[in-house]
């Protein structure tokens, strides 16, 4: 039930501006909503019901008329963004009832909203839904656009029982050459299973002699089924010389399956080396004069 995620907050404020002349004055009318948690992960037995809860807080100065409903979501892009949707392979909306679905939030008030999710007996894999809290748009008086402010709270459900966990590293990349660090190390994962999977692990970086330079911890990151996600890491060292090999050792799934990938990069402070070389050459060319001058000074 991801209780730890209750500590997370996401607040969404919307401020309107009027005109150039009214720039500062126009900022006073704001609507601020806060939802907690922004996302949570749950397990559900097929044929059973679970209650998912989220809190919406009105941090505006005025009361707001609100609605709450459930939408599905899928991954969008490869950096963890989501797209709200209706239906699809991982839809949960038809299993879900939300209460209350309409309410008034006084200034500073908080409303707990519950989604009751009942899974069919033959359900398997993952299902993904989102509370969507919306400020009820007012009635238009014409010649205007009404703005409806909404905020989402995601929930990721893993159905207990057999699942298809299949995750792979499809790419590990880094800049081929840099003069200085830090060096970015990107891992691209593809989830071809039927449930979201969290991967975590570390990237071991070694120099040309095989000496360990760093172990970079890669924190747990969810990968949505039928989606790719890029996980970014960084070797946070400035002065590096030579070729380096970075080896990722990543774990995923209930069986702690292992994935590995490797990339090589070169770091060399080219401009500093060039300056040193020029200085050495100059000293070599003028070595006799320098020696004479030095002797003259020491007599």
């Amino acid at each position, binding site marked *: 039930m991801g209780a730890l995620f209750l*500590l*997370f*907050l*996401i*607040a*969404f*404020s*919307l*401020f*309107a*501006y*009027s*005109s*150039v*002349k*009214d*720039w*500062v004055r126009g*900022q*006073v*009318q*704001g*609507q*601020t909503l806060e939802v907690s948690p*922004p*996302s949570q992960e749950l397990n559900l037995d097929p044929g059973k019901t679970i209650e998912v809860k989220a809190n919406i807080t009105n*941090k505006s100065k005025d009361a707001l008329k609100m609605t709450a409903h459930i939408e599905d*979501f899928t991954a*969008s*892009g490869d*950096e*963890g*963004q*989501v*797209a*709200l949707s209706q239906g699809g392979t991982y839809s949960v909306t038809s299993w879900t009832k939300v209460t209350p679905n309409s309410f008034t939030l006084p200034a500073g008030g908080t409303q707990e909203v519950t989604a009751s999710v009942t899974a069919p007996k033959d359900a398997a894999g993952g299902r993904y839904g*989102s509370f969507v809290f*919306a*400020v009820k*748009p*007012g009635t*238009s*008086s*014409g*010649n*205007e*656009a*009404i*703005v*409806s*402010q*909404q*905020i*989402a709270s*995601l929930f990721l459900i893993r159905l207990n029982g057999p699942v298809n966990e299949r995750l792979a590293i499809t790419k590990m990349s880094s800049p081929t050459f840099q003069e200085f660090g830090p060096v970015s190390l990107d891992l691209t994962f593809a989830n071809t299973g039927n449930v*979201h999977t969290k991967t975590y692990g570390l990237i071991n970086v070694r120099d040309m002699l095989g000496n360990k330079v760093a172990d970079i911890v890669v924190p747990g*990151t*969810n990968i*949505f089924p039928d989606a790719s996600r890029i996980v*970014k890491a960084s070797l946070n060292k400035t002065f590096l010389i030579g070729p380096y090999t970075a080896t990722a050792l990543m774990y995923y799934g209930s069986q702690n399956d292992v994935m590995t990938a490797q990339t090589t990069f070169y770091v060399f402070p080219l401009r500093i080396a060039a300056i040193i070389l020029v200085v050495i050459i100059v000293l070599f060319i003028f070595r006799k004069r320098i020696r004479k001058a030095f002797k003259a000074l020491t007599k």
Partner: protein
Amino acid sequence: MPVADITGTGANSVNATNLTSGVTSTASTIPFGTLTAGTPKVAAQDITVTTNASSGYTVTASHSANSQGVSAPLISGATNNIDPFSGTNASPVTWSSPAGSTGNTNTGYFGYTTEDSSLCSGTAGRFGSNKWAGSTTIGTEVACSTTGVSSETTRVGYQIEVNNVQPPGSYSGTVILVATPTY
């Protein structure tokens, strides 16, 4: 919330376009008022997001489906509508006046822009240099971050223009802004 928390720029434009004096927006309305053919009007809002979710957030913009069954952001009665501007979220373009010669077909444009120069999908700074897009009924990105943020503010602008073929009437519609956390 103190104003100082949401902006410190003192800017007077959105993506290099001056706001139109007299369009007094609120947090829930953009009252463009009476439009003059060939004279665009511009309004802006600041979206401020705070999240301690380490993976960040996305804000999308869309417009609601309407009773005419056409993908128009603003409608009037049963037949008249103002079209979305021709640029898209993936490829926004410089604002251009509607040039349609048949009422309700490219005779009015409504578009949006964002000052977020580091969007998470597509070309990060594609709305720079005063580029605009038309909204659709599917949310498209106007602000995002891949990390937790504290009071991150993004200015979103709206522009509307009609030509002299646009049927007169009282037009209205709904812009939907949705903040979603990253999964």
